């Protein structure tokens, strides 16, 4: 890791390269649900954004898809049947314009960051690095969306920690 820039090529994640503990599997299942929710949200909000926002949303969608696939692979390797995505999700607030789309993007990224954060203590070595990369990417995207949406503060001391 030499820079905190997002790394969307997560399909080569080492999550599946080593057996996971029961706690690790449980955390990854929860994280898979968060990644699926994020994919659903980006599928809805993209259309409301301007060109720059659309580009950011597309990149985020690619990254979330790669991470979802990496988790599915890891769960599959562990014979821990990954749960499929829900057919629909209830949005936390109405999606009406670009500002609400940006706020929703920040919201889902915070949720994803919180889940990857919770994976950290259940894994080590290359698996922890993969979890930290994913956590960092989601928190960085959340920061960018918060700044675009004019939400303050743009960043928090403990990203993803539920108060």
């Amino acid at each position, binding site marked *: *890791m*030499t820079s*905190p820039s997002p790394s969307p090529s997560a399909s080569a994640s080492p999550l599946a390269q080593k057996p996971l503990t029961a706690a690790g599997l449980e955390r990854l299942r929860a994280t898979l649900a968060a990644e699926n929710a994020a994919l659903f949200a980006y599928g809805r909000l993209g259309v409301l954004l301007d060109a720059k926002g659309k580009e950011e949303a597309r990149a985020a969608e690619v990254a979330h898809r790669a991470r979802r696939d990496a988790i599915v692979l890891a769960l599959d390797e562990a014979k821990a049947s990954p749960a499929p995505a829900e057919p629909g999700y209830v949005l936390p607030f109405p999606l009406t314009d670009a500002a609400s789309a940006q706020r929703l993007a920040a919201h889902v990224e915070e949720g994803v*960051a919180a889940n990857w*954060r*919770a994976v*950290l*203590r*259940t894994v*080590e*070595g290359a698996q*922890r*690095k993969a*979890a*930290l990369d994913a*956590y*960092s990417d989601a*928190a*960085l995207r959340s*920061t*960018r969306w918060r*700044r675009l949406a004019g939400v*303050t*503060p*743009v*960043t*928090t*001391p*403990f*990203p*993803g*920690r539920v108060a």
Partner: protein
Amino acid sequence: MQTPRRTQRRALLRAVVGAAVVAPALAACDLFKPEAPPPPDPLTGFYLDTLALAALYQTDSRPLVATVRDAHKAHAAALAAIMYPPPGSAAPVPPSAAASAAPATPASVREAEQKAWQKAVDACLTAPAERATLLGEIAVARACHLEVLR
């Protein structure tokens, strides 16, 4: 007049009795000997660097900068809460190079943040499980600082 042999025996007796009296007294002294300070927590250097990082922003009161500075202070407090012995109670540790440097320009502050971010990443990846979450939070917060300080 004493013979040399008798003198030797008395000297030996004096030595044995003396040792019997002095030894418990010395042992008693051990009870009150001050304990050596415990070795510093492995996070001590990281903690000191975090304090130094917060100090970089001390003179800047812009809201965004204040957010970053307060984050570093919150990180130092959170680190102090998990360190054993708590910082300040252990043997003194010389400040690292990063802690003693005092960058003042936006570019040098950003460079300090970049180095601090890498240190936090390394610390998270090598930490025991119970410390991994906090160190990961600090690493990710620092990555976000780099994003907002662009």
